[in-house]
């Protein structure tokens, strides 16, 4: 996508916001300018700490899910028998909205970072697992045969074929679920914590009634989601240049 188009879209959305704020004309919808002021002010206050807490939770859970789901997906994709054994389980678990487990996870894991990381991990894990599995299983047998004929055993196949073949699957899974992950993080941070953007937004909106600060939190959460999305884009261009050539 062109930078110019993105800039124009941003300006368009901000203008709509401005227009809506002028029409509503109430403290619950401040103008972008007021929120920008609050955002800058809050940057000197509590906001960065909450932002980092949320970022850490997303980052840790993403890393954890890649480290566990990618090898598992490769295993399932390579061994049809193992896949046949597990696929009914995955079939049943995959469509369940993982966010409904949040109360249970909170009951078991209590306060702190762990329950938040676990819930996001659950969302990402199944996405990555399924996409990497399908990508590994979809490799043409002719390709495997010809690489084996070059002398490759299982380890070399893993290193030179399955591992690089799984990278697009991991990135696609992240692209698809990064939005959901941030949304669930928000919900998770409403409970049993005093750190994180979810808590910050809720505190300013419902307890302190500091609406500009609340909006600054919403902006920070949006930036977190956008930043993750852009990071996936960036990684894809770096790691999979072959997907972008004509």
């Amino acid at each position, binding site marked *: 996508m062109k930078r110019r188009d993105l800039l124009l879209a941003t300006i368009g959305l901000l203008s709509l916001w401005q227009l809506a704020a002028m029409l509503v004309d109430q403290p619950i919808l401040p103008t972008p300018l007021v929120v920008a002021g609050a955002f800058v002010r809050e940057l000197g206050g509590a906001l960065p700490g909450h932002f980092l807490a949320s970022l850490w939770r997303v980052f840790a859970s993403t890393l954890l899910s890649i480290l566990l789901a990618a090898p598992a997906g490769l295993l399932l994709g390579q061994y049809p028998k193992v896949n046949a054994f597990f696929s009914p389980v995955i079939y049943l678990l995959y469509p369940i909205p993982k966010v409904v487990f949040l109360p249970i996870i909170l009951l078991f894991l209590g306060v702190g970072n762990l329950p938040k990381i676990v819930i996001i991990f659950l969302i990402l894990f199944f996405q990555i697992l399924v996409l990497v599995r399908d990508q590994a299983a979809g490799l043409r047998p002719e390709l495997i045969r010809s690489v*084996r*004929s070059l*002398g490759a*055993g299982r380890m070399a196949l893993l290193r*030179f*074929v399955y591992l690089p073949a799984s990278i697009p699957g991991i990135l696609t899974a992240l692209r698809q679920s990064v939005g959901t992950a941030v949304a669930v993080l928000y919900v998770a941070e409403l409970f049993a914590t005093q750190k994180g953007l979810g808590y910050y937004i809720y505190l300013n909106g419902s307890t302190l009634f500091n609406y500009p600060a609340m909006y600054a939190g919403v902006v920070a959460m949006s930036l977190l989601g956008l930043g993750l999305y852009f990071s996936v884009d960036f990684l894809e261009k770096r790691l999979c240049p072959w997907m972008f050539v004509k």
Partner: protein
Amino acid sequence: MIDLNGLTFAYPHGEPIFQDFAWQAARGQAWTVIGPSGCGKSTLLALLTGLLLPQRGEVRIDRQLLTRPRPRTGLIIQDYGLLPWATVRENARLGLRVRNFYGPDGVHAPQDYTRTLEVDRWLERLGLLPFAGQYPGQISGGQRQRTAIARTLALEPDLLLMDEPFSSLDAPTRESLQRLALELWQESGLTMITVTHTIEEAALLGEQILLLSRPPNRQAVIISNPNLLRENYRDTAEYHQLCRELRARLEAA
């Protein structure tokens, strides 16, 4: 170079494809294998590669009993053999990378192997240097097949097996690659076995032609093609005569 003795092979729950089958090919020869679909051409190649093992009898390559793919055998297949995420140069290096990965263990790489990633000599010989930085999706089918050939030749094989290598290419590209294959065979002195379903290719790439028929194959039917290296062989009466003979034999089979 190749010695099949008392070879019997059947897929699970199937009729035998080969039964007590014997066939020899000398070092440095060029053979083509032809027959109707389902005759066992590709099975024979898989047996020679060591990717399939016979139920009875033995496959010997260079006097060694074949029990697993051997490092000095190169295999080129019809298509899909290249890594889509690697450039032409990196694809050509793949075999060397695999060897470097294992080291000279005698199983995955010959024991006298010295580590290298040098493939530019082959890229140049095959006219691929200008495309070395491009991905398989960006180049033509002929260039892709040249890349597969470069990758295999970089491993300095003494036995080259090709499974319908040019059948997905258009006619001019196919002809130029057939000529190239013959040139490389003559230059390198390797043993070359090409499986094909087209009569013309069987006559153009083999000084000996192995004719397979409906399974089970019990006896090797061999047709020799002494004029193979004659200039403009494609246009000679002998070539057309051989094609007619092959066609008649295939129809009878």
